């Protein structure tokens, strides 16, 4: 009986519930899309890396102290003598040295190919034990010959016989393309570009003459890879290890997956935000449906339905909406996953492809989240429905009793206080998982604001409506009146928009503060006039031969050209990136200001910035347990503490320590200071001509450096804002839904207005005003909350360089204007529906 009622109600309110279901669809689609995307990409990378294991069984390489980062390129070279030792191991059928390192092809446009994440690989052309197959030409055999992978060849248009330039450690050199090869069985590179050189050339270009990056070996029949790895491990010298190819593939895949895992978590966060926003819409829709059906529900109660049955009937509808929405969301998610992949290849980071992976866990998660959120959001309206007194069926006045807002104020206040406390704990890092604490705190604050906002929805919308009323007269008065009429409904609708707006405002405030802080510190400290660095997007920083610094120093008008790089080091239990160079030489270009200690960092000594020192409880002379890239442990001494410096970052490691424990002597940046009298433009021209042979290096002056710092902040801001737009879209659906339901509820009133002479256009305008007021109210709440959040986070990060609070008033104003536009858009459809209403039928509606 209750089931039939539920189904009938679902059918009767198709349109109203359809919009609600759409809110569920959007949220779950984002979650499902992310899960499907990461599942598919993980599998594709597994397949890609597993291809290598079909040709070799064991890999020998320098011991890796750290995972992730740039270690692949910085691994300790394996001397040729080790190859001989490996070849002599019983059970090794075949072994060869492997050479890999950075090398990029210069495209027809003079720019290097690739570099948007996946590495640009130079390799020594293998004679055997490889999964490279020539598709045309032959392998490189002379120092001036190169072979390209088929994807790169296709992208650049280079074919056998073409003259190309390639750049590795040193300057770009000319080569002849003698062959094109396929990687693996499918020829997929996953965005990596390959340039293969004749082996001894490769050693010179990519590693060290006579040394290898690693050794690969094939086991004789009857010897298992694990067994062989054990035997090889017994003979290789300390500092090297033998692992099975499977292990090596897993490690390599693991690095990539870890990176993609971050991305998935990042995207999932936005999916969760969307679902949270959607829950407000679900709550609001069911509240309104229940209010509109008070008579029906009371009649049910009057004829003997129990409270439980009424609750069940409403919850049944929610279940239907949640289930349908989640299933549609799952399907839409698959489409979204395909879209994400397209997005990646659009920015030049091709991902290996495989069939879409829709794991059972993805299905379970999506459906569970979608249905659970819908049920929770619908629970409160359902309970209210059950409380409808049977006598309401007989009363003409079906308006639900107005409940006191006092209980709400108290509950909202408590919730807000709890949220604030969680936020504070998370931000100050006093225990617990900071991210989880901040997330939970923000969630509670949002709920609190949503609960409290009905208290001031009426005065605020009246205030906002006042200028509209003055300008536009009666239609605006009516619209404003409608927005004030039901503060709970207005607030719940606005709350959905508030959340997205608050997060966007938070990010905007943070970005503005970061930019302002960077500007401030760069203005005060930057000593370098130019910076030369290897290009590369969010991938590992490229590196180049330190001799470039000497070339640049020789340019007329250059006072100094100081090389530096970055390296991983473990301090205590933290794995951090440290700037590496001669602190005394870098002090000028960086504009380092010492607070204590010395710039002379000797062996096992490190400099740290003031914020880090304070956080770690360190002072000059403190000793910290450290581990370097070669795996060696040491007790490192804090040689000095400098004022926070955006160029140097938190750690500065001396060259001596680096040379002793890090195999890679290449650098990633050269900082150039010009002579005071020299003409900047002339120096720039000199530097440019000196760099002509290095298409992989970029030259930036001070304003470029600032611009880059600003741009990277700006990019992040744009990306996060774009992702948050999804939650705004869901909020728009909510406004549409509320307006549409309000229009239905006010049918008779609209009929009356039309009867006494209101035109269709005026009616549409009236609804538009209501919509705009709700949107702007939500946006104002959001921006207020966002400024609060932004301020809190900025305070928390003040010690880490974000010491200026900047509120981007112009940007926030633009968001407010955008919210008004959102209101106009959201009103289009409900207004059209209202205007189309038949006057007579509207009046006659009971």
């Amino acid at each position, binding site marked *: 009986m209750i089931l039939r009622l539920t189904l009938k109600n679902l059918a009767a309110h198709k349109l109203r519930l359809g919009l609600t279901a759409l809110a569920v669809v959007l949220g779950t689609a984002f979650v499902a899309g992310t899960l499907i995307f990461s599942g598919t990409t993980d599998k594709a990378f597994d397949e890609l890396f597993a291809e290598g294991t079909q040709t070799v069984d064991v890999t020998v390489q320098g011991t890796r102290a750290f995972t992730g980062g740039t270690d692949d390129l910085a691994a300790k070279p394996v001397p040729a003598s080790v190859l001989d030792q490996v070849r002599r191991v019983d059970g090794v059928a075949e072994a060869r040295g492997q050479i890999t390192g950075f090398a990029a092809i210069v495209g027809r446009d003079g720019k290097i190919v690739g570099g948007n994440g996946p590495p640009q690989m130079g390799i020594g052309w293998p004679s055997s034990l490889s999964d490279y197959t020539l598709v045309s030409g032959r392998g490189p055999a002379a120092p001036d010959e190169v072979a390209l992978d088929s994807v790169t060849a296709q992208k650049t248009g280079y074919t056998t016989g073409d003259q190309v330039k390639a750049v590795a450690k040193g300057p770009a050199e000319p080569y002849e393309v003698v062959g094109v090869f396929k990687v693996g069985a499918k020829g997929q590179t996953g965005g990596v570009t390959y340039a293969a050189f004749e082996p001894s050339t490769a050693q010179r270009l990519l590693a060290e003459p006579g040394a290898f990056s690693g050794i690969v070996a094939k086991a004789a029949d009857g010897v298992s890879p694990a067994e062989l790895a054990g035997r090889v491990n017994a003979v290789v010298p300390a500092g090297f290890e033998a692992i099975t190819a499977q292990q090596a593939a897993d490690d390599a895949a693991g690095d990539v997956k870890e990176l993609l895992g971050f991305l998935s978590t990042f995207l999932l966060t936005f999916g969760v935000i969307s679902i949270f926003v959607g829950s407000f819409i679900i709550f609001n829709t069911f509240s309104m449906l229940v209010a509109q059906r008070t008579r029906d529900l009371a009649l049910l109660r009057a004829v003997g339905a129990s409270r439980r049955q009424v609750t069940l009937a409403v919850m049944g509808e929610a279940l239907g909406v949640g289930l349908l929405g989640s299933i549609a969301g799952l399907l839409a998610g698959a489409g979204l996953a395909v879209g994400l992949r397209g997005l990646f290849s659009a920015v030049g980071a091709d991902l290996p492809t495989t069939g879409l992976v829709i794991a059972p866990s993805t299905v379970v998660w999506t459906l569970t989240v979608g249905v659970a959120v819908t049920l929770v959001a619908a629970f409160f309206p359902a309970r209210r429905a059950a409380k409808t007194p049977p006598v309401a069926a007989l009363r003409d006045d079906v308006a639900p009793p107005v409940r006191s807002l006092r209980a709400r104020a108290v509950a909202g206040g408590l919730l807000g206080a709890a949220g604030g406390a969680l936020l504070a704990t998370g931000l100050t890092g006093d225990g617990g998982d900071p991210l989880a604490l901040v997330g939970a705190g923000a969630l509670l604050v949002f709920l609190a604001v949503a609960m409290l906002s009905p208290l001031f929805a009426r005065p605020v919308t009246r205030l906002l409506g006042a200028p509209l009323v003055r300008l536009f*007269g*009666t*239609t605006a*008065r*009516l619209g404003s*009146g*409608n927005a*004030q*009429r039901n503060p709970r409904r207005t607030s719940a609708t606005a709350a959905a928009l508030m959340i997205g707006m608050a997060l966007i405002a938070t990010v905007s405030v943070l970005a503005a503060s970061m930019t302002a802080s960077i500007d401030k510190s760069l203005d005060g400290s930057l000593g370098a006039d130019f910076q030369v660095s290897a290009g590369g997007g969010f991938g590992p920083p490229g590196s180049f031969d330190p001799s470039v610094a000497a070339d640049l120093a020789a340019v007329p008008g250059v006072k100094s050209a100081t090389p530096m790089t970055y390296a991983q080091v473990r301090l205590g239990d933290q794995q951090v990136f440290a700037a590496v160079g001669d602190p005394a030489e870098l002090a000028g270009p960086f504009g380092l200001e010492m607070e204590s200690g010395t710039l002379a960092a000797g062996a096992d000594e490190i400099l740290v910035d003031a914020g880090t020192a304070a956080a770690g409880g360190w002072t000059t002379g403190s000793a910290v347990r450290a581990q370097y890239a070669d795996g060696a442990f040491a007790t490192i001494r804090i040689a000095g503490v400098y004022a926070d410096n955006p160029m140097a970052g938190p750690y500065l490691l001396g060259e001596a320590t680096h040379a002793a424990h890090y195999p890679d002597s290449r650098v990633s940046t050269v900082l150039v200071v010009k002579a005071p009298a020299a003409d900047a433009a002339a120096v720039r021209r000199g530097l440019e001509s000196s760099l002509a042979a290095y298409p992989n290096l970029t030259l930036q002056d001070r304003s470029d450096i600032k611009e880059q710092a600003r741009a990277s902040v700006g990019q992040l801001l744009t990306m996060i804002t774009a992702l948050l737009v999804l939650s705004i879209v869901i909020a728009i659906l909510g406004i549409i839904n509320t307006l549409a339901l309000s229009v239905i509820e006010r049918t*008779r*009133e609209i009929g*009356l*207005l*039309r*009867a*006494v*002479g*209101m*035109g*269709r256009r*005026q009616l549409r305008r009236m609804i538009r005003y209501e919509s705009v007021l709700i949107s702007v109210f939500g946006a104002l709440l959001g921006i207020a909350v966002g400024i609060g959040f932004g301020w809190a986070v900025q305070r928390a990060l003040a010690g880490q360089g974000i010491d200026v609070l900047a509120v981007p008033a112009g940007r926030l104003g633009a968001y407010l204007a955008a919210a008004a536009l959102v209101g106009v858009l959201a009103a289009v459809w409900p207004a059209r529906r209202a205007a189309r209403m038949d*006057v*007579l039928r509207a*009046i006659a509606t009971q």
Partner: protein
Amino acid sequence: MTFPLTTSAYRDLTGPAPTTDDEIRSAGPLAARAVGVTKVYGTGDARVSALDGVTLGIPGGRFTAIMGPSGSGKSTLMHCLAGLDSVTGGEVFVGDVELTRLDDRRLTRLRRDRIGFVFQSFNLIPTLTALENITLPMDIAGVRPDQAWLDAVIDTVGLRPRLRHRPSELSGGQQQRVACARALASKPEIIFADEPTGNLDSRSGAEVLSFLRNSVREMGQTVVMVTHDPVAASYADLVVFLADGRIVDQLAAPTAQGVLERMKGLDR
């Protein structure tokens, strides 16, 4: 402005209703008229004829009641006269404007500028005050109300102390009086009232009806009221009886008793 007409002046209107346009036009100045109006709902077997060739003149400056049993088509007739509903056949005039040729925009304007409405219930916009409700049609039109007239109307309905109240703070009778004031405030050519006392107790009903009658007698307003209550009809100058979509009778200077008897005759 007072009309010199007394009840006795149109006692001669009682009797068989005029049936042709010429006949109704010869009866005197008309505020509105319907000529051979038919209204059909549905098609085929479900075809229902609500109005079956109604020809009727609404005399200007008088209080006309349209009476009839349920389903007689009296509400439909009023809706057609007021430009709220379209006709299937025939012509409807308000003043000398033919309504059936007007599009929605012109009809809306006509209702706004030339017609006043009082409905049975739900007459007021809940978000507006009593005064704002009264001036609503003029506010929608963007014209300033005639303040002297407005004051006169407000005083007549006796609402001055309640002007800043919202409808929810008014009694049912007060709400209907606000609706009457709204209908009157813009000086429409004709006021249509659809069962204006249907939801009121007898005292409040009497107040509203007296007000409507006074607006005719003292202000020269034209009022058309649809009702099924003989007592309400007795406030009118002229009662037109409708049955099965046709005008069957009319009665001038009615008494409640007289109307009741005619009605009994119709309720076979």
